[in-house]
Structures are given as structure tokens and as C-alpha cells.
């Protein structure tokens, strides 16, 4: 090989598959040049794999619910129990909190601390409203004798919906931790990576809720 081959500019590919510009090669090591990928990418990808495994776990609970849905043991069915107005408000809260979490991502990308804290505070309030509405619904069901011990259907219902609610509760604690870390440490790379994982987690929870309100509540209220 001659040195001319290294210095000659390669034609730019329209889909940015190559990144063979010598001057920029170090900025995109994940394309097979310049060593291992950036830590942000490794961390984000690892967390993505965790989220997929979490979704696989939820799919087992969904399968259990689908199989046990008719096993009401002569007890109340979904159509008797579910308050669709409450479910609609819960859905709105979680969707709004997912949107404001996206706004927090934009604020953190622009390094604006005030907007970040504002967006995260709104996200927390919507998430908290969701958890409180769900707890009120559960308390109401138990009070009218439709607790998880009543039938196989209700066991599966409380396991599936409760598992999602537990995830949201943990997400709320994580959210407060992220606000505290951005406040105390500022926009350091490891704080930014943690927030990336948090935003992935929060958006994934909303995706699971979409499946949940469709399968459990909307379809359950029809039969």
C-alpha cells in the first residue's frame, strides 16, 4: 500500500455506513474504526437488553392473565369490576408523564438545569397520580370482596397490574434520584448515562401500559 491510499478522500456514502473520513473517524468508533464503542452506547444497549428481558417477564404475566381470565370461580368478571373512567385517567397520566420525560431528555441534551427539573417534577406528579389512582382502584376492589384471593382471574389481574404499578413506583424513586444527582453533581457523563437509562425505562413502562389497558381493561370489560 502507498500512503496515497490513506490520504485520498473517500467519496461520502449517502447512508453514512462507512465514516471513513480520517478526520472524523475517532468520533464514530462504533462503526468498526478506532476501537470499542463509547461507554454511553454500551450502557444504553445493555439497559435496552434488560428492558427487553423485563418485557419478556411481563409477557409471562400477560400469558397467565389470558389463560386464567375466564376462571372467575363464579365471582365477579372484569365487566362487573372495571371503572373505565378511572382507567382512562390513569392512561392519560402515564402518557403525559412519558411526554414530559421526553421534554426532560431535550432539556438535559441542551444542558438546561431549570427546564430539566421542571419537566422531571411534572413527570413525577403525573406518575404519582397514576400510582395513587391504581392504589385506590386496588383498595376498592379488595373492599368489595374482589381481592387477589377471590378467583384465578383476580389473582392474575392483581399480579399483572400490580407488577406494572411496582415498576412505576420504582421508576418514581429513580426519577427523584436523578433529579437529586443532576442538582448535586451537574451534567456529568455518568449522570447523563443514568438519565438515558431512566428515560428508556420510563418510556418502556408506558409501552407495557398500552398492552395492559388494551388486553386487561378494554377487552376484559367487553366479555
Amino acid at each position, binding site marked *: 500500500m502507498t500512503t496515497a491510499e490513506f490520504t485520498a478522500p473517500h467519496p461520502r456514502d449517502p*447512508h*453514512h*455506513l462507512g*465514516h471513513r*473520513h480520517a478526520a*472524523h473517524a475517532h*468520533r*464514530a468508533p*462504533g*462503526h468498526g474504526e478506532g476501537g470499542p*464503542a*463509547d461507554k*454511553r*452506547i454500551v*450502557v*444504553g*444497549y445493555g*439497559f*435496552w*437488553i434488560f428492558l*427487553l*428481558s423485563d*418485557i*419478556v417477564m411481563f*409477557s*409471562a404475566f*400477560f*400469558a397467565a392473565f*389470558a*389463560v386464567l381470565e375466564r376462571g372467575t370461580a363464579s365471582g365477579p368478571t372484569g365487566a362487573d369490576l372495571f371503572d*373505565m373512567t378511572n382507567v*382512562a385517567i390513569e*392512561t*392519560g397520566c402515564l*402518557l403525559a408523564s*412519558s*411526554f414530559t420525560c*421526553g*421534554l426532560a*431528555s*431535550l432539556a438535559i*441534551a*441542551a*444542558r438546561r438545569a431549570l427546564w430539566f427539573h421542571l419537566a422531571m417534577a411534572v413527570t413525577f406528579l403525573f406518575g404519582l397520580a397514576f400510582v395513587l389512582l391504581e392504589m385506590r382502584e386496588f383498595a376498592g376492589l379488595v373492599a368489595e370482596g374482589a381481592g387477589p384471593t377471590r378467583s384465578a382471574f383476580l389473582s392474575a389481574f392483581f399480579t399483572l397490574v400490580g407488577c406494572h404499578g411496582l415498576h412505576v413506583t420504582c421508576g418514581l424513586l429513580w426519577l427523584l434520584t436523578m433529579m437529586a444527582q443532576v442538582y448535586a453533581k451537574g451534567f456529568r457523563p455518568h449522570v447523563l448515562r443514568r438519565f*438515558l437509562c431512566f*428515560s*428508556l425505562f420510563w*418510556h*418502556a413502562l*408506558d*409501552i407495557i401500559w*398500552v*398492552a395492559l*389497558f*388494551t*388486553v386487561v381493561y*378494554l*377487552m376484559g*370489560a*367487553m366479555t
Partner: protein
Amino acid sequence: MTHYDPHDVDTAPGDELLSEYEFGAGLRGYLIGLALAVLLTAASFWAPHTGLIWGPGIPVALVVFAIAQMGVHLVFFLHVTTGPDNTNTVMALAFGILIVVLIIGGSIWIMESMNYNMMPLGPAMVQP
């Protein structure tokens, strides 16, 4: 400072291919996602109460709305794209969806088939 080209940096899952000067573009993406998600949610809640959809077709409509909304969330909130930086993300997602379909579909298939093959439990067969 030379011209900043966002295509020259790798993106992590969930990251959008934006430079710091494109705050407005990022906001527009989230607003489009929110609008589509609200529309699909409203359609889901409205579907069982309308006479427009043939009764037995309502569950199918609900599943279609749900899958569409999950796609909206993936594209506009999680920024899953078909770009080269997202290949690994999409491959992992595809494998996850395969496992989910196998678990849910397989469970329903096996249990429905078992329920079909079992004798109905009459009063005489119930153990005291």
C-alpha cells in the same frame, strides 16, 4: 469550531440523531408522538362503544390500535429508527418480540387446546 455533523457520532438506544442546535426538531418529534398516541388511545377507548365496528371485530381493532400505539412510542419516544446505528437495537427488539409472541401465543394455544380436550367438570365428577 468546525461544522458539527450529528451523523459522525454514534447514538445509544433512545438517543436521537440531533445536534444541540436542534431543540425545536426534538420537541416537534415528541409533540407528533404525543398527538398520535392520544389519537390511538382515544380510538381504543371509543371502539367498544361505537356501532361503527362490527361486534366480533372489536378485539381485532383494539389489538391493531395497541400495536400501532406501541410503534408510535418506539419511534417518537424511544427513537428506534432504521438507521445503521440502530441495527443492534432493532435486532434485540425483534428477538424480544419473538420470545413474547412464543410465550403468549404458545400459552393461549396450549391452554385452549387443553380446555377443549378436557371433559366438562360435572357435579358427579367433583371430589367431595
